[in-house]
Structures are given as C-alpha cells and as structure tokens.
C-alpha cells in the first residue's frame, strides 16, 4: 500500500520525440486511477515509467514517499498486468502465480498458501495445474491478475488488461477488476483507450493527449465540466456534438439558430483578442423532442427544426441523427478525436447531429422534426486553444449564466 507521486515526470526518446511531458499526478493510497486517451498519447509510457521498465528523462517519481527513479522494477514492489497477459507458457497456472513468490525466496508452504488464496479469490482453483495454452482468454486474464495480487504489492499497474477480451467478457471482467480493487484496497493505475472503462472503473480519471495531462478528476466531473474541447469530445458515448458558432451582435450564429449568451460569456468575448468564432458543444441527452417538453423546461432552452436522418431505437430511448445546414466545426482536437475513433473525414455539406430523445417520441425517419435543446448545458470552446469558455471555477454553467 502506498501513494504514487509523479512530479514533472517527462520522457524524451533519443530521437528527440517527447512521449510524456511534465506530468504531475498525485495518486493517493488505495486510489484507483485511470489513464485514458487516444493511442500513442503516452499513457503506456507513463505506466512503464512507474513500473521501472522505462527510464525517466526528467522529473521525480515517488512511491510511498521514496524517490524511485533509479530503482529497478524488482525493487519497487509493484505488480503489473499486461495487455497481452504475458503468462509464462512453460509453467502451469500454479507456477505462474508462484513465480514472483519464488523469486522473493518465500518458503514452500507460504507460497502454496498464498497461491491457493489468490486462486480462490479469482476462482482459478480448478485450473491451477493447467498450462496457459489450455485456458480461455478470460481465464488467462484472471491468471495474470492472480500473478499480480499474489504477492500483495504496494501498487498494481494495469496496461489495457481487458482490451483483448470480447465485448461481453470485458463487461464481466470490468466488475471483477473493480470488486478486486475495492476488496484489496491497493493503489491501482489503469491504462485504457476505452472511455467506458475509464468512466465506470476509476475513482479518478486522467485524460492525456500528446503526452500531456488534459484534466484530472472523478468521471462525472470530467463529463459535466470538461476543461477543454478534447476532454469534452473524448468522454461520452455517443460523443458530444460540435457546431460552428460565429459571434455576431452579442449572439452566436449557429446551424441551430441564434443562441443568446449571458453576461459571463459576453465578458469572455469582450477582449480585443477574444475569438470571433467559437465551437458550440452539446451532449446528445440535452436534446429533446419539442412536443414532449413542458413549458417550464422549454424556457431554459431553444428549439430548431431539422430533417431526421436515422432513428436508432434503444428501447429505453432513441438515438436520432439529424443533418443541419451550416459550417462544420473545425479544430485540431476534433480532427485528432476523429482520427482516433477511426472516422474518415466527413466531407458532405452541413453537420450531423446526434441526439438522444425519449422513447415516447414518435419521431420517424424522413420527417422534419422540431427539437428542443438545453441552453444551460451547452459548452462553448475557443477553437484556437480548445479552452472551455463556459467553465467558471471548474464548473460549466451553460451559455446563459450571468
């Protein structure tokens, strides 16, 4: 059990690429922290530096208050679960799990007892004498976890441990990981590309982009109060809608109509170097079929009409895709997110809008539909640096706040 502190930790490779830049992070004892971001953003490098598998170029890494920059992995007393599981194929499950204990030179009885205990926790008892080749993906995953927990290390590092499992098993293993971490109360750092895993598992989530930390906070906070365009676009599924918005006559001209702005946002836009163009972000669930909105709610938002593209009925609610006229939002962050999602650049005119309407909505494909959206929940971003202009003291307040 220990806390882990990263103090301006950087990683620079010999060819000059900076994989990780000045990461400051304090992970409390027993905390479950998720590092999340698109591929190649330095999360795995960060994890490897904590593990000691990769040298730290500058900055300091402290585990339990002790500087460990120059310590070998074996002297740091932390365990790691690899994406590929990395089980020793020449050893049985029992030998795999006993391996760290044997290296620690524990006596045979203790080793046996500890392996049996860990196997029981992970329901591996029946498989102890099998070789990894004869195990399913989920079982191998559990053995890898078993090998990590068996010697009760100061911390666990997990490098995308679930990404090789099929979707159903992944959901199942997610709860196993979560339960295990709570049960053991061991500090855990978990790397993933999957924002669902990030949202559901961690106490706190660290969003990284290009080797730098974008925002750190509990999942809900990142979702509700994203500090910048990148965080807003990365967290949430389906992701936030982004629209181009031009500042004109104290209003925002957007594809959804003129959006009024409150005092706070106006003040942000007063300076000489203030942006004249913004990106407006709305989450799918902040739309509603205009027919279903009561008058009280109606006042807090505005309405627009657009042709319905596609309706996906999820049972509990409906995902409705609209096409709206107007310029598409563009920013470096958005392109990066699109590339990560594997979406090819959409070249058609106008923008596509994803909304989540309630299941009662009679919306059908091909119709024109009036849709209401909540002005208190919209975010405005500066396209040049991605900053969220609606965020005040870490709280997003919508466009109308005074």
């Amino acid at each position, binding site marked *: 059990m220990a806390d882990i502190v990263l103090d301006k930790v950087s990683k620079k490779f010999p060819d000059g690429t900076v994989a990780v830049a000045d990461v400051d992070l304090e992970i409390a004892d027993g905390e479950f922290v998720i590092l999340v971001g698109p591929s190649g953003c330095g999360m795995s490098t960060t994890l490897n530096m904590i593990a000691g598998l990769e040298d730290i170029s500058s900055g300091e890494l402290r585990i339990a208050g002790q500087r460990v920059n120059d310590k070998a992995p074996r002297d740091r007393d932390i365990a790691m679960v690899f994406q590929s*599981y990395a089980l020793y194929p020449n050893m049985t499950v029992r030998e795999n799990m006993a391996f760290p204990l044997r*290296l620690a030179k524990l006596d045979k009885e203790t080793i046996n007892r500890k392996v049996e205990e860990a196997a029981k926790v992970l329901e591996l008892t029946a498989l102890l004498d099998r070789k990894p080749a*004869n195990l399913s993906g989920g079982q191998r995953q559990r053995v890898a976890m078993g090998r990590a927990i068996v010697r009760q290390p100061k911390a666990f590092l997990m490098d995308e441990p679930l990404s090789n499992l099929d979707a159903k098993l992944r959901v199942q293993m997610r709860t196993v990981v979560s339960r295990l971490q709570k049960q053991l109360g061991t500090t855990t750092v978990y790397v993933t590309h999957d924002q669902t895993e990030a949202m559901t598992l961690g106490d706190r989530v660290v969003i990284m982009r290009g080797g730098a930390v974008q925002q750190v906070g509990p999942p809900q906070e990142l979702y509700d109060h994203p500090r910048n365009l990148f965080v807003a676009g990365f967290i949430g599924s389906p992701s936030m809608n982004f629209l181009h918005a031009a500042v004109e006559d104290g209003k925002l001209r957007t594809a959804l109509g003129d959006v009024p702005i409150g005092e706070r946002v106006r003040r942000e836009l007063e300076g000489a170097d203030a942006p004249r163009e913004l990106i407006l972000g709305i989450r799918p669930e902040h739309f509603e079929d205009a027919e279903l909105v009561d008058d009280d709610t109606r006042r807090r938002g505005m309405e627009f009409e657009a042709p319905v593209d596609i309706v996906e009925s999820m049972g509990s609610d409906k995902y409705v895709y609209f096409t709206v006229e107007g310029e598409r939002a563009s920013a470096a962050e958005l392109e990066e997110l699109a590339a990560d999602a594997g979406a090819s650049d959409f070249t058609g005119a106008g923008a596509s809008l994803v909304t989540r309407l309630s299941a009662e909505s009679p919306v059908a494909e091909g119709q024109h539909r009036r849709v209401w959206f909540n002005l208190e929940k919209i975010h405005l971003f500066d396209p040049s640096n991605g900053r969220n202009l609606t965020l005040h003291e870490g709280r997003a307040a919508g466009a109308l706040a005074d």
Partner: protein
Amino acid sequence: MAETTTRARLRWGLLDVIVVVFALIPVLWIASLSFKTPATLTDGKFWPREWTLDNYRTIFATDQFVRALVNSIGIALIATAVAVVLGAMAAYAISRLDFPGKRLLVGVSLLIAMFPQVSLVSPLFEIERQFGLFDTWPGLILPYITFALPLAIYTLSAFFKQIPWDLEKAAKMDGATQGQAFRRVIAPLAAPGLFTTAILVFIFCWNDFLFAITLTSTERARTVPVALSFFTGESQFEDPTGAICAAAVVITIPIILFVLFFQRRIVSGLTSGAVKG
C-alpha cells in the same frame, strides 16, 4: 468423398516414398556394403548375399578408429556447447538491445559465415603451429566455434525475436533480475531454438573434413572423417572399402541419435498461451 481422400493419401504416400528412397539410397547402399564380405563387395547386389560383421570387427579391433571416435565426439560436443552458449548470449543481445555497433556485429558474423574456409586453412596451420595448438583438441575446437557462431547467432536471434517481449517485462515486474528473466523465462521458451542450433552446429563440427585434415597429424586430435581416409587394407592389395563403409555407418549413428533425442524437444507451439491469440 472417402474415395478422394484415399486416393489423395495414396498419392501423397507414393510421393513420400519416392523422396525418402531418393534420399536414403546412398546411405542404405553404404550400410549394405558394410555387411558384405570382401569377395562379394563388388557383385553389384543391393542385398548382401553373405552377411558378415567382419568389417565392424576390423575397425574396432584397431585403436585408430576408436581413438578418432573419441576425438570426434569430444571436439564436436565441446565446440557445440561453447558455440550455443556464446551464440545464445549474442543473439539475445542482438534481438533485444539496441547497442552501438550492432549492425557491424551482425555484418561481420555474416561475413565469417560466407568466408571460404579453404583460404583460411594455410594461415591457420601456420598460426596453430606457432601457438602450439597444432594437432590438439583446442586447435580444432577454436576454428569450429568461429565458424559455428554465425550460424548459431542467426538461428537463435530468429528464435528470440519470436518470444514476446512482454514476458521479459513481466518477469522483471515479478522481481527477476535480467539474468533470472533470461534463465527462467526466456531460455526455456527458446529451448527448441537452442536444440535446433545445437544440432546444426554439432553436425557441422562432426562432418568437417577440411580443418580436421589440415590441423591434425596424429591420433591425438584426428577426427573420424579424417581417420577414415587413412584406412588401409591389411595388405596393399586389399581394398578397405568394407571397413570404410562400416566406419561410415558407425559415425552416422551418433548424428541420428542426437537428432532423434532432440527432435522430441523441437515441438512447435511451445510458446502458445503466453500472449493473446
């Protein structure tokens, strides 16, 4: 359906037989000659009319052949062991580390493998005489190691590259030193590679004639292939063919045993289950 499979099996079986017979006829012929009496040696029959073990008795009766057999086994085993151990370490470094001069090392070892050995024989002869290595075991072991190393390095680095690097990282995280990670995790997985390399190197040393005939002069270090060429009949009118054939059969046996023994270890899929897929 069943008919086609039977026919396909027959066709494949026939092909197999042709290949095997083609490859084995010279070997079987020698084996057959080794059992013939001097009188029937040149009768041109594949199956000996009169069986005899005299040829075998002859070669084991003199010290000459037994001595050479001991030399051969000793020299080949020592050279193999050293080449495989050194080669494993070099191959591991080449496949895992990025060190200055790596390409040069790989290039030079390739160069050594390509170098015509005949052109080295005379200089080696002079050098070994100067250093007193001529006609000794080390005098043969050293050049064998030199020429076997590139072979060992190439074969082994290919094997090491197949072993997922994550396993080594995992071992380190589990508390192993670099050495322990190599010995307890990587080496067991590379075992098929080690055995394959050992076999190749052993056969190379065992079969060598060129170095053995130039760098030895007496029974002290003379190996079997050379000893065979010194076989003479009991009189100058007698042909030693039968004895030579018997000796050839005898020296083939260790190779066969060696391969059979290690073949069981060379099973593919030893690394399956380590990582996904």
